[in-house]
């Protein structure tokens, strides 16, 4: 091993991990430890594996993932805060041959955009929705979200979320599972190797559903925002397991095989 050069190690036969060709080499703006980057990687891999790079249009939100378009090599559109499902509707309806997905945070999807997501799902828009629930507004500096847990401190609930003042954590995924327009509704996480693998399967299924024109597929990823939570990445993972999963229970909420009726004709 003594005089081994790096070139001796980087050989195809030694390769145990390779990143997707659709992942763009660029400076990463996400905080180390953030869940966003892992989910981006999964989406890039899935688009490549399904061979749909030329047909996929991503819709990025307002939130930390606003720059999702810097990382995956497909066509993108950046939507106003909360409006990604409406933007995706406009793309998908006028381009039924395209695979359209939105990527939204919990402030974006559960607060300001609660209306748009419910109606897009209720109409059964043929889109994938990736919902990154980190129980906080990451981008604006850690304010309370509708998904913030009771007692969880944030910059706008410094003593912890108070039910009397702010009501209860909002379970969008449970609400969305009740809507007949959705065919697949699931809650995942990406904090361990095993959950990353499971989450990838779920997101892949969501994309395959859209390829089969089955209606809306909705994947919540219970996520960490270690910066907003003011924790270490490892501490954030533990806190998520111990606190978030009790409120946001991982698993499939719905998996239908019903085809949505086609429009017109």
């Amino acid at each position, binding site marked *: 091993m003594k005089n081994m050069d790096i070139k001796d190690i980087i050989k195809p036969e030694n390769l145990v991990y390779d990143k997707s060709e659709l992942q763009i080499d660029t400076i990463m703006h996400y905080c180390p430890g953030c869940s966003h980057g892992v989910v981006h990687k999964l989406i890039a891999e899935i688009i490549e594996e399904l061979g749909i790079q030329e047909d996929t249009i991503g819709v990025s939100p307002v939130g930390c993932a606003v720059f999702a378009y810097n990382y995956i090599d497909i066509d*993108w559109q950046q939507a106003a805060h909360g*409006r990604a499902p409406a933007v995706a509707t406009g793309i998908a*309806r006028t381009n039924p041959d395209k695979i359209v997905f939105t990527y939204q945070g919990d402030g974006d999807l559960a607060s300001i955009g609660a209306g748009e997501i419910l109606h897009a799902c209720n109409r059964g828009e043929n889109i994938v929705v990736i919902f990154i629930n980190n129980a906080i507004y990451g981008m604006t500096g850690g304010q309370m979200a509708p998904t913030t847990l009771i007692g969880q401190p944030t910059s706008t609930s410094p003593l912890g979320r108070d039910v009397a003042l702010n009501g209860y954590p909002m379970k969008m995924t449970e609400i969305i599972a009740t809507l007949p327009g959705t065919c697949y509704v699931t809650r995942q996480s990406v904090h361990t190797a095993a959950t990353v693998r499971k989450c990838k399967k779920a997101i892949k299924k969501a994309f395959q559903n859209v390829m089969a024109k089955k209606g809306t597929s909705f994947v919540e990823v219970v996520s960490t925002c270690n910066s907003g939570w003011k924790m270490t990445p490892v501490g954030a993972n533990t806190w998520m397991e111990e606190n978030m999963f009790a409120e946001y229970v991982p698993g499939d909420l719905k998996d239908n095989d019903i085809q949505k009726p086609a429009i017109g004709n």
Partner: protein
Amino acid sequence: MGELRLMKGNEVLAEAAIRCGCDAYFGYPITPQSEVMETLMEQRPWDTTGMVVLQAESEVASINMVYGAAAAGKKAMTSSSSPGISLMAEGISYIAGAELPCLIVNVQRGGPGLGTIQPSQADYFQAVKGGGHGDYRLITLAPASVQEMHDFVKLAFDLAFKYRNPAMILTDGALGQMMEKVELADYTPRRTKEEILDQCGSWATTGKTSGREKHVITSLEMDSHKMEQNNLRFQEKFKEIEATEVRYEAIRCEDAELILVAFGTSSRICQKAIELAREKGIKVGLIRPITLYPFPSAIIAELAPKVKGFLSVEMSAGQMVEDVKLAVYEARCTTPVKHFGRMGGILPSPNEVVDALETKF
């Protein structure tokens, strides 16, 4: 000669959209323009031309659906009335910031607030000065007849695509509800995929093929220096629009001593007022801006040294009058510029306009 029909202004907007090869309409019901979507739903253009028609859950959703479709190079439109247009403000600003073409129709009603369902022109400022945030402009067309409601749908799309900028038809409840004879255009087929690629392939989200870089439709730029460059580019575009696209009609201005300036419904009232005034020996003419942005400042500047005054007649407390004043000021003239208007859904009568001419000058 195209097909002749007796139609409502709102119905004609729908018919003209189908006939000019529009790809998509997204809207939300509001009086006095609901007939636009009702007509489309009755016509079912998705079965004929393939045009998409969708009732959205709100005006916020409608404009964002337009934003999505427009990004893919589609000819997309929405229509609403005043309160609904206010809700669209953020979306319109995004569309302008991302430099996308689309058509927004505002069939105005009286405000502020929920106001009234009767016609008004009080959204002039909102249409031509902004409405949403940031330095942008809407190419704004003001039809004065049901025929122009028809013609301006195609014109608005043409201008929107020429400049990659949102265009607005600013009309009102009177023109929307009014029935007139209209000559309909022949059907222009919707553009094929190849034609869209030809026209918009350099920027639209048509899917990243291996031959090109990914396309990102966004109005975001975190680097202030680059954002300023973007703004400078927009301003260049607006200058070009101002230099190229001004449209107006001058009626009986040759011998006029007083000039009425009015658009849309109030310009029709002014035409009657001109007749009445001339019977009384007052030599009155009319400048009818067809494009409210770009505003026909040059003709006003040209007339300013020759006439005794301008009267801006509007169904508002006086908004366009500011642009008339600016044009006169730019011409280094001191010609008086006055306003006469009715508000809250009331139309001025021709006699009231003549009275205003007599008392204000």
